[in-house]
């Protein structure tokens, strides 16, 4: 079973965000693997361990993205594909999906996995759009995958504690829900082995998959507060005493 996992590199969780127009200033901050995608990678590795085949990591963005691909290789992916594009952060979801789909078409994949959404743009559309562009069946918010006889039985999460089982033929695109598995760490052996693994770089232009932008992020900004928050300050002890008083006599909730 050959599996392509789409992985995005995003600003590190604790990175201070300096807003610059419709994106952030990238100097001086760290980047990391988008956490929801790490669950998709883990699921791909587990499927490979069970059914054999190859796990290919696909990532788009500037040169720094290679670091995240290497991390995935160290965890056990077999090879990486880097779609080089310095303007990746400016692409709309459809243009991103068209570029990823063009790279996926060059491979013989049985399954394409994505995380549910990215922690930066948070579009949450790429898996569904890939299915559309590649004309493959798809399912999203997946909590369990069982493969037998060229079909999958999937557990899909719905709202408010509900789930649904669905059957889906292969090949297909799945968006994986965070928490589906416990993500592994790279071992030292894995890190050493990754040095020998291949990362093929292609430019987005060379894929010939440009699509006219359908939307534009005009600007980003710190949201205006809708509620007036009363901040309590002082030592931990002071704050605790004040808070108990507020909750007791002002909010009257304890």
């Amino acid at each position, binding site marked *: 079973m050959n599996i392509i996992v789409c992985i995005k590199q995003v600003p590190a969780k604790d990175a201070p965000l300096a807003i610059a127009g419709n994106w952030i200033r990238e100097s001086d901050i760290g980047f990391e693997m988008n956490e929801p995608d790490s669950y998709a990678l883990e699921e791909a590795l587990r499927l490979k361990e069970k059914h054999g085949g190859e796990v290919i990591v696909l990532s788009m963005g500037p040169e720094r993205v290679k670091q995240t691909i290497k991390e995935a290789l160290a965890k056990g992916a077999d090879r990486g594909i880097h779609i080089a594009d310095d303007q990746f952060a400016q692409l709309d979801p459809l243009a991103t999906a068209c570029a990823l789909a063009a790279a996926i078409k060059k491979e013989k994949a049985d399954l394409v996995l994505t995380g549910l959404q990215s922690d930066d743009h*948070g579009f949450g559309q790429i898996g569904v759009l890939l299915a559309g562009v590649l004309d493959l069946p798809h399912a999203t918010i997946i909590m369990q995958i069982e493969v037998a006889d060229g079909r999958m039985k999937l557990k899909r999460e719905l709202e408010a504690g509900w789930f649904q089982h669905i059957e889906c033929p292969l090949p297909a695109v799945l968006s994986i829900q965070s928490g589906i598995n416990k993500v592994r760490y790279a071992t030292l052996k894995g890190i050493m082995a990754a040095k020998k693994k291949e990362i093929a770089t292609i430019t987005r232009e060379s894929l010939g998959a440009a699509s006219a932008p359908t939307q534009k992020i005009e600007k980003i900004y710190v949201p205006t507060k809708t509620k007036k928050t009363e901040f309590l300050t002082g030592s931990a002890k002071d704050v605790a005493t004040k808070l108990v008083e507020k909750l007791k006599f002002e909010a009257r909730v304890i």
Partner: protein
Amino acid sequence: MKILVITEQRQGKWNNASFETLAAAQRIAAETASTVSALVLGKGVGPFADELAAKDVSEVLQVEHDLLDSYTPDGYCVALKQVIESAKPDLILFPHTYQVRDFAPKLAAMLGKGMIGDCIGYRNEGGKLVFVRQMFQGKTAADVTFLGDGPWFASFQSGAFRADLLKPHPSGKAPVNRISVDLKPEQIRTTPLELFKEAKSAVDLTQAPIIVSIGRGIKAPENIPQAEALAKAIGGEIAASRPICDEGWLPMERQIGSSGQTVAPKLYLALGISGAIQHVVGMKGARTIVAINKDQNAPIFEIADYGVVGDIFEIMPALTEALEKAKA
């Protein structure tokens, strides 16, 4: 402008976010001299169509097909593409539900269009609609506009608009137009099976008057007893944001948020929770919200009544002690 709202029902029940989106559409229509059509699709959805017709809409589109009885992304995309091509709306609005996430971007792409998803609001800037959504897990907002010709697709986050502001039809009932679509079994590639809930959870957080909830800031499972001691002292239930349950530090049944439980207690104490939108939708209805977080820019403070910028590991024990002293 012609606005089409795609509503959502499942197994004889509305997804109430449908009405919030319909209310949003009515407001946009009033500001832009537009009309609103409401669409419901499925099998035997006449009663749903009639209910929509009682709202202030110019027409209701009732899309019926046996193969739309259960939701499938293929079935919905094939059917709705046909409806959109014949009805020619300029703007198509959806509630941002799990189901909409599953098919709407693809539907838009099948028509060569894009979708602005998970919007929390909009602005009308001289006839141009600017949609507002969140980025960076709620740490920033983004103004997003459509490029090119319509139809444009957008979805509104649950809670972004108020369903109780939905206007009834001024003179009784809007016309209901039944629309037939051409849909064949082989066009539907996935097979939906049974809906189910996991083993019934022992705790019903929706009934808890006080909830003490922990997020990533708790750092390690060894630290959870500190939060539990605080919950005990304040007489509340312990709960968490999704990452804590994903890690297995607390059972999934204690998760608050879009994929977990939605609660509205009288007091919600958020400890080390940044306030990503997936969490906030599950608790923003709480009467009083207290947020304690070391990051003063954490989005949780936007909805907090009381905020403390500080170290939860200093404040949790101090607060537990103060509560016990207050009781004594």
